[in-house]
Structures are given as structure tokens and as C-alpha cells.
């Protein structure tokens, strides 16, 4: 069985598990929205200021809550289940790909949900909304892969995983913030999209190539 086929099976069942748990939809998205709501309460209802800081606040919330999404309970299977997958001969790269893909889909859902809240609360002026269809998935994929690698390094997440993700996510956050700023100012954003794509490719290679080593080193 190919790695991709194994990953596809695992992804399907992980998403089904998440759908029943509802951790992201019922918990993380509402709390992310509340975080966005708190900021206008702190800075006051000055619409020009809110419109200019909105995208930046949005990406900060995506980063902080995105780590929670990648370290959700359904992303870290119990040790016995993990052992069973190892004994079945499931390729560690397939496990990485499935977990990262599930996290990316959920992060995209989170980005869209919280993004709608941001638009309502901050009313940002953004030209070229269509570009977001490219930026959002690239950011979701990057954060998902970074979170999955951090979860493997820390063997199931814990307090250490978010601390690992936050500094390493700076290129993603920078690319995302600069891309939306470019959209707001009407300047070119292609180079920032390329930065995001490059970071994603590097993370994908790192995740696939280190999956086996990380799994074996935990034994």
C-alpha cells in the first residue's frame, strides 16, 4: 500500500473523529472570535484604527489559536493506537501527512470562521480579496505542518509544543501579514506568496524526511 493511500485512510478517519469531538468548531473558533472581540474593547471604537490593525490582529489570533488546533486531542492518538499503527507497518510519513492535512483543513475552517468575525468587527479595507484564496490555505498548511512536527518532537505536544511553534512560525506570520498589508495598500504581494509557498515546501520536506527518525527516536 502506498504512503498516500495510507495517509488518505488516516485522514478520513481523523476528520471523522474531529467531527464528533467538535474541538475546533465548538471550542477553538468561538474562543478565537472572543479574542478578536476583546481587542476593540481595549483600543476603543475608533473605526480607522480598527480597520488598519484588523488584519494584523487577525493573523496574531490565527497563529496563537492555530497552535491549539494543531495540538488538539484528535491530532495526538493514544500511545496504544500509535503502536498498533507502527505494527501494521504504517509509514511514519503517512501519519505525518494525514495529521498535517487534517490540521490544515481545520485551520482553514478556523481562518474562515474567525476571518468573518474580523471583517464584521474591524471592517478592514482590503483590495483583491481573491488573493486570500491562496494566502489562507498556504498559511493553514504551513502552521499545520509546523505544529505536527512540533507535536512529534515533543511526543504529543504538551506545553513545549506551542513554545516551539511560535518562533518558527515567524516567517509564516510575516508572509501572511505582509501579503494582507500589500492587499490593503494595493501593492504587489506575489513575493510574499512565494515566501509562504517556500516555507510550506521546506516544512513538507522536513516533516516527511524526519518522520521516521522522530518516531524511532521516541522508542
Amino acid at each position, binding site marked *: 500500500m502506498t504512503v498516500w493511500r495510507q495517509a488518505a485512510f*488516516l485522514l478520513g478517519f481523523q476528520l471523522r473523529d474531529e467531527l464528533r469531538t467538535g474541538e475546533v468548531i465548538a471550542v477553538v473558533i468561538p474562543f478565537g472570535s472572543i479574542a478578536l472581540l476583546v481587542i476593540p474593547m481595549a483600543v476603543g471604537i475608533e473605526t480607522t484604527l480598527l480597520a488598519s490593525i484588523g488584519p494584523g490582529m487577525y493573523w496574531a489570533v490565527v497563529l496563537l489559536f492555530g497552535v491549539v488546533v494543531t495540538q488538539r486531542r484528535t491530532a495526538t492518538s493514544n500511545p496504544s493506537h500509535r503502536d498498533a499503527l507502527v505494527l501494521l507497518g504504517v509509514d511514519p510519513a503517512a501519519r505525518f501527512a494525514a495529521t498535517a492535512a487534517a490540521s490544515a483543513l481545520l485551520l482553514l475552517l478556523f481562518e474562515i470562521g474567525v476571518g468573518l468575525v474580523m471583517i464584521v468587527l474591524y471592517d478592514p479595507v482590503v483590495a483583491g480579496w481573491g488573493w486570500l484564496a491562496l494566502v489562507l490555505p498556504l498559511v493553514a498548511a504551513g502552521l499545520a505542518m509546523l505544529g505536527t512536527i512540533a507535536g512529534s518532537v515533543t511526543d504529543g505536544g504538551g506545553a513545549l509544543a506551542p513554545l516551539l511553534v511560535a518562533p518558527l512560525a515567524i516567517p509564516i506570520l510575516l508572509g501572511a501579514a505582509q501579503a494582507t498589508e500589500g492587499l490593503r495598500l494595493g501593492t504587489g504581494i506575489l513575493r510574499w506568496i512565494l515566501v509562504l509557498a517556500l516555507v510550506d515546501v521546506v516544512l513538507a520536506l522536513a516533516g516527511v524526511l524526519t518522520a521516521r527518525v522522530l518516531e524511532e527516536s521516541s522508542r
Partner: protein
Amino acid sequence: MVGGESSTTGDGNKSQFAIRNSQFARWRQVCSCRQRAAGSGKPDLFLPAAGGPLLLTLAAMPEDPIVAVEGIAVRRPGALILRDVSLQVLPGEAVGLFGANGSGKTTLLRVLATLTRPSSGGGTVLGAPLGTDAVERVRPRIALVAHDPALVANLTLGENLRLLALLAGRRVDDAARALEAVGLSGASGRRAAVCSNGMRRRAEFARVMLAEPDLLLLDEAHVGLDPAAGDLVARIVESVTGRGGGVVLVSHERERVGSLIDRSLTLADGRITEPGR
């Protein structure tokens, strides 16, 4: 390698003697297994076809034991969990592993499952040397039933088994059949999280049936099972040994597993203190 086969005395004669000694010891174990098989009604895996001579029997027997480890030690920060453990499990043999809490039984099972790398010592599991990449090839032939069930809590028992069947390259129907075989066909749609311990344990045995392992490692197999399900454990153990596989069964209850095993070992403080019977 075990039983003197890797003896590196530097003296050719001594080495030859060690090899012969090892082969003789294995032959004695095979004969002993045959005697027990005859007494227990288990299939005799070493019976020569059409009553051939014993020499033919030995030639036809599988060359390698299922498990052959020697001098295994597992160290963890501040603790030596296993020390100098040697164990051999022959084809068709079920070995009971007893010992108090913390004696290292579960760690030894994990070493045999190739899930824990020994700090020192070595040997082979299903012919693959421990600590090498070769173990990846034999892992699908190993099944481990651990303390905690290998089930995803929010998936139903049926979904859990289907996932494992698909990953094992089996048909989805096989998952349903395995659940039926362990008496859980009616609970296939129930989430693992809301099943009783006994039901989850039965689902674990369904997983074993799907895997059809050559090496079955059971950690407290009877925990959570009602007396009627005890027969299920026996059937699974016999199906593995009957195919020429090996079973290592960890338990606190000598009386309950006594009839399932060919010999027993006792671990104390990470060391085997009672080698066989």
C-alpha cells in the same frame, strides 16, 4: 543471536561446541513442545509427514525460533527496567510471563514487539535482528494487546476495525467478521468511548484476528473479560500457536492462564528468576 550461536570465544573448537550445544538445546525444546502438544490436543507442528524419521522432522522444522533474545537490558533515567534477560520462543509455543508490578513484564513485551529499543543485548524477532531496520519488515506479523486498547475513542468499534483492516490491506468485510467472531457484531456502531472495558478488550482481540500474527504478545489478556470470554483468549492463543506462531502472555493470574501456556517464566526486578518449568 542466541544459544551460543554467536559465541566469539576466539577458539574454533569451543565455537563449534557452542553451536552443537545450541542445536541440541533447541532439539530438546522441540521434543518437549511436541510432548506438550500431544498432551494438550494442540496440533503437532513438528510431526513428520507419513511418520518419517526424526531426522526428517528436524530438517523440516523451521530453522529460526520466533523469538530469540539474549542479554536484553533496558535502561531509563534513574532505573534499570530489564537486566540480562534472555528468552526463546519456538514455533507453536506459548510462554507465560509472570511477575509483580514493576518487574519489567510490559517493557519486555514492548522489546519483543520491536517498540522499545533495548539499551544492550540483542537477538532476533521473527528472524529480524532487534535494533535494525529489518524489524520494519516483520512488524506487520506481530500483534500486541497492551493494557490500554488501541482504539480511537470517538470512532465506533466498527470504524476502528475498518481503519485497521484498510491499513493492513484487508477487506472491510474482514473487520465485520472479526467483530462477529468476538461477539461484538451488535456493538459495531457503538463508540469505543462508551464501551465497557470488556467490550474494548474483545475489540482488541478482533484486531488480533485481523492481523493474523506470527507473534502474539498479550499483556494481561484476561483483564476486564467475563469468564465466558476466557475461552476467546484460549481460541486466539491456540490459533496462533496452531499456525506455528509464538505467543508471550503476561499475567498475574497463573491459574487462569496455566492451561494456555507451554512454559512459564518469572520476572523479578527486571531479571528472569524462574526460567521455565
